[in-house]
């Protein structure tokens, strides 16, 4: 159950070299939205665009292929994509909304559809929710300190940040690569991530991440009926190249291992909040 419900899992990458050129992994997110936009499945998508500070994401509504492509790549900092979920149907006027987000943002989205306390006329307009795997996230200042203090690299010279193979990778515009052991990153993690019980965006229509597949490819879970329908159409349209997930290394075994580790660790932390921080009191548990 750590991987959630899914109809199929595959290894995939975009067939579009333009998208792959600057995507984080197999360009799944950007390709899915670009296809869905083309096919009229969405009118646009909420993405984590680039703000005026390097690698600081900014939630944006992309309504063109160019805008989608401009938001490619992972920014390892908090992008409150849900903050636009009502506005996207108002001043942007979208009736069929795409949204990308971390597992917690997918939880926020589904809670928002079931309990739309302050989200009038939003629930029925979510056409495609794409989730990205997530082990943890960082406040922007954390990224700044990791790259500039620990990595001794100016953030504005960085071309890509990545977490993989047990390291935090900093790639610079001029070709140098700095790697930090993940150990040093832990203290900068966003505190709210330590109670998070989802690694692979179980509540997305389609979720994707790098873990499990070779460089340049992505692991994809097709989850909901809506996701299944859109994935089938995208495949039929030739948007993706796929391989059976069993045929690639390290495959779902590693995804399962990491998901189990994350969830077990955080479940323990939620328990500790009841007993180890207090005397005769408990820190609040959001899960009921």
């Amino acid at each position, binding site marked *: 159950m750590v991987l959630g419900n899914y109809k199929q899992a595959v290894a995939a990458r975009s067939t579009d070299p333009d998208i792959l050129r600057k995507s984080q992994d197999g360009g799944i997110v950007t390709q899915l939205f670009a296809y869905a936009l083309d096919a009229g499945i969405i009118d646009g998508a909420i993405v984590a665009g680039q703000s005026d500070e390097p690698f600081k994401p900014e939630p944006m509504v992309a309504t063109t292929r160019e805008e989608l492509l401009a938001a490619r790549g992972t920014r390892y900092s908090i992008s409150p994509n849900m*903050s636009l979920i009502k506005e996207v149907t108002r001043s942007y006027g979208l009736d069929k909304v795409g949204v990308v987000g971390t597992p917690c943002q997918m939880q926020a989205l*589904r809670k928002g559809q079931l309990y739309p*306390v*302050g989200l009038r006329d939003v629930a029925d307009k979510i056409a495609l929710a794409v989730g990205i795997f997530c082990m943890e996230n960082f406040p922007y200042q954390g990224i700044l300190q990791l790259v500039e203090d620990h990595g001794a690299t100016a953030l504005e010279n960085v071309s890509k940040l990545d977490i993989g193979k047990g390291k935090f990778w900093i790639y610079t515009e001029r070709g140098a690569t700095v790697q930090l052991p993940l150990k040093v990153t832990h203290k900068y993690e966003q*505190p709210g991530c330590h109670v998070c019980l989802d690694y692979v965006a179980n509540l997305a229509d389609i979720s994707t991440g790098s873990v499990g597949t070779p460089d340049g490819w992505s692991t994809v879970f097709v989850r909901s009926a809506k996701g299944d329908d859109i994935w089938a159409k995208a495949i039929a349209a030739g948007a993706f190249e796929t391989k059976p997930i069993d045929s690639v290394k390290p495959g779902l075994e590693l995804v399962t291992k990491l998901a189990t580790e994350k969830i077990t660790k955080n479940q323990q932390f939620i328990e500790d909040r009841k007993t180890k921080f207090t005397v005769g009191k408990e820190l609040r548990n959001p899960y009921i």
Partner: protein
Amino acid sequence: MGILESLKALLFGKHDVGGEKQDQKPADKPADVIVEKKASIIKEPKEEKPVADKITVGHVHMSGCTGCLVSFADNYEGLLTILDKYADLVYCLTLADVRHIPEMDVALVEGSVCIQDHIAVEEIIETRKNAKIVVALGACACYGNITRFCRGGQQNQPQHESYLPIGDLIDVDVYIPGCAPTPQQIRNVCVMAYLLLKGNDEQKALAGAYLTPMMNLAKAGTEACGCDVMYNVINQGLCMGCGSCAAACPVRAITMQYGKPQIERDLCIKCGACYAQCPRSFFSFDVVNQYEGIMEAIDAAMQP
């Protein structure tokens, strides 16, 4: 009578929910189970639904702007479905010609209570006595909302100065926060209450799980503020920066700064939407993991 029992009484006799989807394919995914189970409801004979068995509902208007009622009505044909099949509107100053608060299964109370207005005070007490379930419909009834800022002196009742959320005067069973509460939230509460009464054991458990947080909000108190996301989420080490609170705020008092909510406290009207919307205020995996099935079931229940 306990709330579950009352809800049962309330929704007794509505057998044809989802009738439109009778020939729907049985689901094969766990998330769809709820749809599959509806079949058992559909099979019950329709003749067992005498009009007398409809539940009785009243809309009690305290100091509110009628926005909550309008929001309920903004379900359009969905409202007609509810009134046609499930509920008799026995009291509603706007729509029904009844002067005194009658006995009813559910009272939807809109607005806060002016304690200098003895009629309002009598009516809220009467409401508690006469209704099995009291629902605080909207932010003024739950938390006072903008009426928190009243300080009297207005014409033509300058002495009307103190407005209290209904929970400061009577016990309240369910909260529906928001200014205005959304049509879809009101609708979802109605449908879940129905499943609680008429569904099979699994559906009852699900509906109970769905409504529990809104009952918990009613138990938690009568004060709300944007500060709640600071006190109960960020201060508790639970915020992950999704931005739902900012999206929910009706007055744009919340902006996201460096991934966390920044509350413009002077703008806040005390509606409680931000905290209730936050996935880290309450979150039930049992409920949300079934979002697909639940949304389908709600759509089916709203078919005319």
